[in-house]
């Protein structure tokens, strides 16, 4: 049975560059044309969701995921097209919506519960469960303004988790917070789905979470569905588009965010001989070259990149600011080289997201700066690799039959040739 049917839905926003600021301005506006720009956040999107399905919605930032979510939850109405839903829809977009700081935990459970669509009788019957789920028995009659942020979030989530709708729509922002909290959230969603055949829609960046929770998926790009079907296919299609984005060239791509005071013009990989390549060998020295332009004459900036594997899991994050390397005043344009003495990645395809941070703010961030493959291995003698399902990164190690003092081991002391003086903890070096 179809519980949600989205029929050629479009959503237009008016980017008002010239919005009336007050009534007087609005009155003047009658006599002149305003410079407004239409922005189609979603264009002719159609899909159906069957009962018991767990649908993941994935896509870039700004692709239209959040708009879709707001349409599905009725917070916004479509500009054209129609959405039909059957059954009670509950949206977990924010934890603790409507909490009043002066009211006690118990009072807020009733308030938040009714905001989320529960009846008082229902809340009353679940009250003890909610309190114990939140682990707040001792503080339940304390005003929530005295709660720590963790307690606040636990209470909010406990209420949300006990809403029992036919259709549950969850935004990934719900999964922020510590890892334990995320696990609890995902576990609860899994329970809701499997125990009662409820329908779940999950909007997320976290491809691993989408894969483990969802059966089907849709991928939205620039307001349109570019892929739909079994979740594994959709995740793969999404990663493919990220790779294709790399081919546009970093200097031109518009799939970026940040203040723009500096820009990445190129991120590429160099093998042990300094030749640019996208096919790398594990265990070989590898250099990541980051090129920038600095039109604003910024003096100091931090360069960071994250390597994601095929399932979208971040494998490592390499941050110049964590090392002792200090680049000196920046030029109008230039390059930085980050050298990894032994590439510790199993075979597979990887994506690099890169950013320049100036004064704590992203000056430029590109989600898919480059893509590379690890095609072979010299990490271990004999060129073998651990099975990929048990391994996302390789770790240098040695075996012996006697106890050893770790400080005397060769790689701890840096037996490998290291190109610079300033060593990062992972052996990555900037220069």
């Amino acid at each position: 049975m179809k519980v949600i049917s989205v029929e050629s839905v479009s959503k237009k926003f008016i980017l008002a560059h010239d919005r009336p600021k007050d009534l007087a301005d609005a009155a003047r506006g009658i006599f002149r044309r305003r410079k407004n720009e239409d922005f189609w956040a979603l264009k002719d999107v159609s899909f159906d969701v069957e009962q018991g399905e767990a649908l993941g919605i994935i896509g870039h930032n700004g692709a239209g995921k959040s708009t879709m979510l707001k349409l599905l939850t009725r917070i916004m109405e479509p500009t054209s097209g129609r959405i039909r839903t059957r059954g009670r829809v509950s949206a977990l977009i924010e934890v603790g919506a409507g909490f009043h700081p002066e009211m006690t935990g118990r009072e807020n459970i009733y308030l938040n519960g009714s905001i989320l669509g529960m009846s008082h009788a229902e809340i009353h019957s679940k009250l003890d469960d909610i309190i114990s789920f939140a682990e707040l028995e001792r503080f339940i009659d304390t005003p929530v303004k005295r709660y720590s942020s963790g307690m606040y979030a636990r209470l909010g989530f406990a209420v949300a988790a006990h809403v029992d709708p036919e259709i549950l729509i969850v935004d990934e922002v719900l999964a922020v917070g510590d890892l334990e909290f995320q696990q609890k959230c995902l576990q609860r969603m899994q329970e809701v789905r499997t125990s009662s055949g409820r329908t779940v829609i999950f909007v997320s960046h976290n491809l691993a979470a989408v894969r483990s929770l969802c059966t089907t998926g849709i991928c939205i790009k620039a307001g349109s569905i570019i892929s739909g079907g079994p979740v594994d296919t959709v995740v793969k299609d999404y990663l493919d588009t990220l790779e294709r984005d790399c081919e546009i060239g970093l200097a031109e791509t518009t799939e970026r965010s940040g203040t723009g005071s500096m820009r990445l013009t190129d991120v590429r990989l160099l093998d042990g001989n300094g030749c640019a390549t996208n096919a790398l060998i594990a265990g070989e020295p590898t250099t990541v070259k980051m090129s920038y332009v600095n039109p604003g004459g910024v003096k100091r900036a931090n360069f960071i990149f994250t390597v994601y594997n095929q399932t979208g899991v971040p494998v490592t994050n390499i941050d110049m600011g964590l090392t002792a390397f200090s680049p000196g005043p920046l030029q109008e344009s230039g390059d930085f080289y980050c050298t990894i003495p032994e590439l510790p990645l199993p075979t597979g395809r990887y994506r690099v997201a890169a950013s320049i941070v100036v004064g704590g703010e992203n000056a430029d961030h590109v989600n898919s700066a480059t893509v590379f493959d690890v095609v072979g291995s010299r990490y271990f003698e004999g060129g073998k690799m651990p099975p990929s399902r048990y391994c996302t990164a390789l770790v240098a190690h040695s075996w012996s039959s006697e106890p050893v003092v770790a400080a005397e081991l060769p790689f701890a002391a840096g037996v490998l040739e290291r190109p610079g003086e300033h060593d990062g903890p992972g052996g990555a070096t900037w220069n």
Partner: protein
Amino acid sequence: MGQAVTDKSIVGHVEEPWPEERKLGALKILWQHRELIASLTRRDIRSRYKQSVLGVAWALLQPLAMMIVYTVVFSHIARIPTGGIPYPVFTYIALLPWTFFQTGLTTGTECLVGNFNLITKIYFPREVFPIAAVLGKSVDLALGLLVLVPLLVVYRDYVHITWRVALVAPLLLIQISLLLGLTFILSSWNLFYRDIRHAMPLVAQVWMFMTPIIYGLDMVPKRFLPIYMLNPMACVMDSFRRVVLLGTLPNWSYLGIAAVVSAATLIVGYRNFKRLEPAFAETV
């Protein structure tokens, strides 16, 4: 409003999504959300007086203080004629519902802006906010009545309590319709133009002087009455005095006008609110 065009090729046309719910009457939707309205009302009341030493006593203090001030100024200095009724009870019977009306308007105007975080996060019919705001203020009104009773006892020799006191109920109904209708309009406009927020206190002040609160209706020149009585609050305030203090009946023709104006305001306000509702979450 509400015509269903099914041609999907017309880009930009807003079809009616969720037609199932659109068919429900306004009252049925409200009934479905009665517990939410109750929760929001309770939150409004609880939050208003928490962390204040006097707590709910503030709900009584405002009309009481105004009563004392007006009594001193308009009875002992300006000497406004009241037809033999002691000034404190003469003014309080109008001040109490007026204070409810005025504070209802000011808090009601803010009800959407104040809950904007909820509006962009969770869907439910937005009319619950103005309704909860007005209901929250009704509690203040009920508390104010607690002061009215001893006042009537003190001045029992000057007032004529009859069965007509029961007519307070329909009078309140007219007043609440007007208040709710205006709250629908003001709260939604205030979301788009914050000018409303600044204009409200001024408008309320002017409105108060155009309503027989500190003076009696018989002081208004006869030739102004046809225009003066278009203000539903004028008739309602005068009627409160008649049914509670004088034991007489309201002027039915004026009350009829007041009832029609109030009902029309409620209907127009509600429709205006529902028409703007889809845009609420998109205002930034």
